[in-house]
């Protein structure tokens, strides 16, 4: 046996403070009398820092700062000047990439390989991309006279803390808006580092503000009368709540919510690459991905072959210390999420689906789960309907393209699907018939700043990324 020796990523470049407040009007602030909550490293269960929880008054302070910056600095700044700041932010993110990646992994539990090779470079790429649009907005929508909306309230999830901040902030700034953003409660730390980067870049005070906290903070932001636009990424349940809360106001809204994506594998697919796509589709970021390929739809004739190969491949996945450079699957983000996934696995077993888990030794502390696959799943199983948001794959079969379309679309969600076939005409036919914002052909979980991303049905509305991503932050008059 040739075993890889531990290859731990050093954490010495990360300088953690004991306590974090908020980032308002260009300064880090800790309001008096604030209550604090802890953010925990899910791989060790050790607390990393204490974070202040923003009440209504603190949110109001942040919105006021954003309003002032909007009216006095940012709105009227020439696009080319705004672009300079955004480019500068992107470059500093690249310079501090290692620090960002290590902190992202410590706070969220994702493997360092992913935060280093995906999250951080991609986050910087979104800033670079939208910086380029800042002085070309009139060319983005020919004939229109695009103007910014105002103050954008943004709420982001814990699965890609830095990347989601980039998806939200970069287009908002390029379009001339100012921002109050609430990071997720379990993963606030990279946003605090991003705030340092904004200071380093000389971004004018108040253009971007961060308020930390849980649901109450989010609610205060959503209901603040001086916020012009809400952009939310998170669960469908909370998305519906927000939509109800802002009904009757003139706030603009974009929602990027849950998903139950189907990865559809035909018998003429490039099988070995499809196996990689299945693994990437459901085990990337421990399955904490809204567009995860959490349902595998495999053509009946190749079901056994695909399952045999998938199990062989799963046996090579390395689960454990997220800071080890050779780890493929890290820690579940929080105790609460771990419990929810376990419960849904129990539901799957109780419903009679066949459970297969990768044989791997898991660390004794931390929230670790073995990569899991259920076979014999039908559309009436709960594990085929509910978003599990964990490393759990439900395998269904189909016989014809029509049946695959029917089953793939048989969900309340409509975020992403994947199609695997060597036949181009079939690929395009499927892509047109699938009800989802994204259809990947012979790949999965591929993101690029130039490409719009977003959902249909209960996966939300509005698009992030690409030229379309600007629309959520502009009035087209």
């Amino acid at each position, binding site marked *: 046996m*040739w075993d890889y020796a531990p290859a731990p990523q050093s954490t010495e470049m990360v300088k953690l403070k004991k306590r974090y407040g908020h980032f308002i009007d260009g300064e880090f602030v800790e309001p008096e009398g604030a209550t604090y909550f802890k953010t925990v490293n899910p791989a060790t269960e050790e607390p990393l820092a204490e974070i202040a929880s923003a009440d209504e008054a603190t949110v109001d302070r942040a919105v006021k700062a954003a309003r002032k910056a909007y009216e006095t600095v940012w709105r009227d700044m020439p696009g080319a000047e705004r672009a300079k700041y955004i480019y500068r932010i992107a470059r500093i993110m690249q310079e501090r990439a290692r620090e960002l990646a290590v902190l992202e992994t410590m706070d969220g539990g994702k493997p360092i390989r992913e935060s280093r090779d995906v999250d951080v470079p991609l986050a910087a790429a979104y800033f670079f991309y939208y910086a380029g649009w800042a002085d070309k907005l009139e060319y983005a929508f020919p004939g229109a006279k695009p103007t910014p909306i105002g103050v954008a309230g943004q709420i982001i999830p814990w699965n890609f803390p830095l990347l989601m901040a980039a998806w939200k902030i970069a287009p908002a700034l390029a379009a001339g808006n100012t921002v109050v953003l609430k990071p997720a409660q379990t993963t606030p730390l990279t946003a605090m580092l991003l705030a340092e980067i904004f200071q380093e870049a000389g971004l004018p005070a108040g253009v971007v503000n961060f308020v930390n906290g849980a649901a109450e903070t989010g609610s205060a932001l959503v209901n603040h009368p001086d916020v012009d636009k809400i952009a939310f990424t998170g669960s469908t349940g909370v998305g519906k709540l927000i939509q109800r809360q802002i009904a009757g106001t003139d706030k603009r809204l974009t929602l990027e919510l849950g998903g139950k994506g189907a990865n559809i594998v035909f018998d003429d697919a*490039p*099988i070995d*690459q499809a196996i990689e796509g299945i693994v990437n589709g459901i085990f990337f970021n421990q399955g904490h991905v809204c567009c995860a390929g959490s349902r595998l739809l495999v053509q009946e004739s190749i079901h056994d072959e695909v399952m045999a190969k998938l199990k062989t491949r799963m046996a090579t996945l390395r689960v454990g210390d997220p800071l080890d450079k050779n780890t493929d699957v890290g820690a579940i983000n929080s105790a609460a999420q771990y419990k929810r996934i376990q419960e849904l696995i129990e539901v799957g077993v109780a419903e009679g689906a066949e459970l297969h888990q990768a044989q791997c030794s898991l660390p004794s502390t931390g929230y670790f789960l073995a990569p899991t696959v259920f076979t014999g799943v039908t559309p009436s199983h709960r594990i085929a309907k509910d978003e599990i948001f964990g490393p759990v794959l439900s395998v269904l079969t189909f016989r014809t393209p029509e049946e695959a379309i029917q089953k793939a679309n048989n969900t309340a969600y409509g975020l992403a699907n994947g199609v695997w076939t060597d036949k181009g005409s079939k690929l395009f036919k499927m892509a047109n018939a699938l009800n989802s914002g994204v259809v990947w052909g012979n790949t999965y979980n591929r993101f690029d700043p130039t490409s719009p991303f977003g959902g249909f049905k209960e996966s939300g509305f509005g698009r992030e990324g690409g030229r379309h991503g600007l629309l959520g932050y502009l009035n087209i008059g």
Partner: protein
Amino acid sequence: MSNSYQTPRVPAVDQVGVEERAARFNTRSIKKGAKLAGLDMAISMIDLTTLAGDDTPGKVRMLCRKALRPSATLETPQVAAVCVYPSMVKVAVEELAGSKINVASVATYFPSGQTTMRERLEDVKSAVGDGASEIDMVINRGAFLSGEYARVFDEICQVRAACGDAHLKVILETGELHTYDNVRLASQIAIDAGAHFIKTSTGKISPAATMPVTLVMLQTIRDHYLQTGKMVGMKPAGGIRDTKTALRYLIMVKETLGDAWLNPDWFRFGASSLLNDLLMQIEKQHSGHYHSSRYLSIS
């Protein structure tokens, strides 16, 4: 035989996907004990090769001595084989007598293979007759590219018969097959025809071995094993010059085929300059710094 041969059905290969997967192996981090074990393993898998028009008995003897004792100062394994042209087999056999190192010979009118079947078979028989225990043949790329798969299969079968007890490595010359789909099919044909090893390249054509091409071949070997329980060996050749690259290949073999393939019976590197780079790295692991290449014997 040709009339009854059915071209095997092989899975399609997606170029983007296979290249992405191959690149993933490059992100593995091999440290300390795992690195030292990997370096020794890589040395033991080398087919130390000289295939030049100006090869002389003296040069081949020098290479054999290097194979027997790669370093004057470090304790390392011996290499797996010395690989020479048929005309040099006798010299190598004599020099390596009494050792476990195999003598491999490229036959079948390497590297082009462009002559009659009768002469290619004679080439093999003469190398085996002179004592080569391994034969590296080239497939008929012209026949493959014109769709004469049965002929390619048939010729490999004939060479395999001519090898007698010698092991057969079948060189696909992937740089002349151009597509991954072709590599996958050619690998299957060679395996079906009885190859002990499949090998990427002669080293005379660019590109020679690459990670994605090797991955496609490894996946063919794995599928054959899953279906029949029979193992086939793999030899990437050409272009693998440094330790970092060699370790990446070992990672790819481990994660595609498993540890059972991680020994010279089932995996070889066709290389010459790789050996000294491995020795430099071993010295670095022991002493903490690189020494000058002056301390290494040429090979």
